[in-house]
């Protein structure tokens, strides 16, 4: 009987690949995303993300909307950082119209976009904690976010689709006590960073689950067109706010954090540092807030001249760009959104190969995608 057992052991085992579907409905896919994984035991041999579940056809809608009407639609691309979407659309149209918003509008735009960056990175921080299994930082992050959303509600009237940054400037001046509230929020925020460091950043279990996982090399990052904290996590120092400054960013002093190895930990760490830098930028913008107009003179019916342009900004997820072709009408001829999440998501196909199944959630969370931007 023992010889029989040995014979069976020696025979070739037929192993099959197993297909595991990380379906559109899953607590950790941050939206409706489907990832089809081919597994050989615990190791992933192929990963294919499937997108399009949230496609709403904004590029087609744009052909039937006037330029100010498109602003409302732009809120819904990356719905966690709607101020950035508004800003990039306004920059594109202002480029075509060749108008420059006044200095005060620039400062206000910077303040709003940087506060939005903090809010967006807080969502990343909280949801990444949940993916790894730490439930508490999520609640703390959202408590901070509530304060930011309250500030935004006072200034624009909305908590998600702000529509505050308009073509030519901003919607309106700040309410009377807004600067004071913003400053007290910044003080509160600065005290929270050591807490986050103790809770998540410094936690050995968290570091163990993110260091060395999902490594994206510099060459891979460049060929996959990756931008934003994902690119900086791999060590490439490229930030549009420093390299191609817009909206008077050249006036503000801040650092650009870069990671060393390109693993999930570095991408996480870069975003935490970016939050600290954003706090610095908002403080500087508030300190130097000039008096003056908040809006340039813009005609009521906007008919940009013929031409095409590309405008891009450093959104929290990467370099968000708008390519628009104008045919001297009040509606754009063609609008294309270069969405950072859509392009960053392609790197998942390569960095997941060779990893274990238990690391999928950590890797996907570290790319920080928003499906509204992926599918538009």
């Amino acid at each position: 009987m023992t010889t029989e057992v040995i014979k069976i052991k020696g025979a070739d085992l037929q192993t099959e690949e197993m297909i595991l579907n990380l379906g559109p409905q899953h607590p950790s896919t941050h939206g409706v995303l489907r990832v089809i994984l081919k597994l050989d035991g615990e190791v992933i041999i192929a990963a294919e993300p499937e997108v399009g579940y949230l496609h709403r056809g904004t590029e087609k809608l744009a052909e039937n909307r006037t330029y100010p009407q498109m602003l409302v639609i732009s809120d819904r691309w990356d719905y966690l950082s709607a101020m950035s979407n508004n800003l990039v659309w306004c920059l594109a149209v202002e480029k075509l119209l060749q108008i420059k918003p006044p200095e005060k509008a620039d400062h206000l735009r910077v303040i709003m976009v940087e506060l939005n960056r903090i809010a967006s990175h807080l969502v990343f921080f909280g949801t990444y904690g949940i993916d790894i299994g730490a439930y508490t930082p999520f609640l703390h992050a959202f408590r901070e976010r509530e304060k930011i959303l309250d500030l935004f509600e006072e200034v624009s009237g909305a908590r998600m689709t702000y529509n505050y940054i308009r073509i030519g400037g901003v919607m309106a001046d700040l309410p009377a006590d807004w600067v004071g509230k913003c400053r007290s929020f910044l003080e509160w925020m600065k005290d929270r960073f050591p807490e986050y460091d103790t809770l998540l950043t410094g936690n050995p279990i968290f570091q163990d689950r993110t260091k060395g996982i999902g490594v994206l090399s510099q060459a891979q990052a460049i060929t996959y067109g990756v931008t934003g904290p994902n690119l900086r996590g791999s060590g490439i120092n490229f930030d549009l706010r420093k390299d191609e400054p817009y909206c008077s960013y050249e006036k503000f002093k801040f650092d650009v954090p870069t990671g060393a190895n390109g693993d999930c930990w570095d991408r996480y760490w870069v975003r935490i540092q970016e939050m600290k830098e954003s706090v610095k930028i908002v403080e500087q913008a508030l300190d130097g807030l000039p008096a003056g107009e908040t809006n340039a003179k813009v005609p009521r019916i906007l008919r940009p001249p013929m031409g095409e342009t590309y405008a891009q900004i450093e959104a929290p997820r990467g370099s968000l760009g708008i390519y628009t072709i104008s045919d001297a009408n009040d509606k754009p001829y063609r609008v294309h959104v270069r969405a950072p999440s859509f392009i960053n998501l392609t790197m998942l196909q390569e960095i997941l190969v060779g990893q274990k199944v238990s690391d999928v959630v950590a890797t996907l969370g570290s790319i920080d995608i928003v499906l509204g931007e992926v599918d538009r």
Partner: protein
Amino acid sequence: MILPVWTIGQKRAAGVLSGVIAAAVGIALAVGELPVRIAQIWESVLGLAAKKAVPAIVMDIASMVIQCSVIIGFISVAVMFMVWWERKVSAHMQSRLGPMETGGWHGWAQTIADAIKLLLKEDIVPEHASPWVHFLAPVVTFVPAFLCYAALPFGDKTISVDLDVGILYIFAISGISVLGIIMAGWGGGNKYSMLGGLRAAAQSVSYEIPRVLSVVPILMIAGSMKLTAIAAYQSEPVSWLPFLPKWFIFYPFIGQVSFLIFLICSVAETNRTPFDIAEAESELVAGFHTEYSGMKFSFFFLAEYAFVFLSSGMTAALFLGGGSGPLLPSWFWFLIKTFAVVFLFLWFRWTFPRMRVDRLMEFCWKFLLPWSFVNILVTGAWLILR
């Protein structure tokens, strides 16, 4: 630091809490030592039975049935309290409030309401499940927890069955519930819950070894496996450090290492975060209890909390002196110490992220196990040299 100004609600809550504590202390002092009271009550019951000419064997069976019902009643109440407490503790750690409505004061009746809801839920059995395995799995998981309470000392001499091999009995019986987890994974008929069940079983079986080994130094020093004897050993006054009680946790190096290893392994045994891959929702592979609903689902959580209380009770008995303490009766001290350790369990869950499966196993076999051996060696050396 600015001292917080208390709102009316906070003052009221503090008042109610102090009232509850004062009432509890008063009742404890009034009741006194439980064995005395129980002996008194049982004397009068036996007297009544003798008058009615009830045969002795009926009284023996009655005593066993009463003990079992008391323990089941105690477990149910304790679990209900622990679930409520967990929700409150986690809420306050996350700067929110937790249950506030059900029953009025801070939602104390929330768990009762949840239990009633679960009882009324439809019991869904999946088509591909093996019916008997699916049915018996929750039973096999819960019953060992209940059986272990028989040997748990709730204070001086307040124990259901004072076994000579008390610790061995508890460790052996609690190991049977691992079988229940595997049955749950298999009974679901779903390959992913099967994988989840196997992972949970591997984790439980692995962490049992350092857990048992970390207790061996205590047995060596106390010289007995009887839990009451170990607790009694710790209540003797101390010779080498006058103000510190002679609890095992204070023994230099041996006490702390044993305590830490035992605590970590208990957290792993009860499938609590950071070792909760078995029930984690955000992981890829579904947990072993995915295919359960209604009362069967609540049985798994009853078992989990019963084991949490059991492990905390053992920690209190083995390391924190069991029932020893001034003034108040021993069962009260035992409950205080047990719930202090339960608080640690709750605290861990909401602070730490989850460990990955292979790192978890590595931690057990490559870190905890060698250290428990070192611990035994050091204890042996100390005993010889003393």
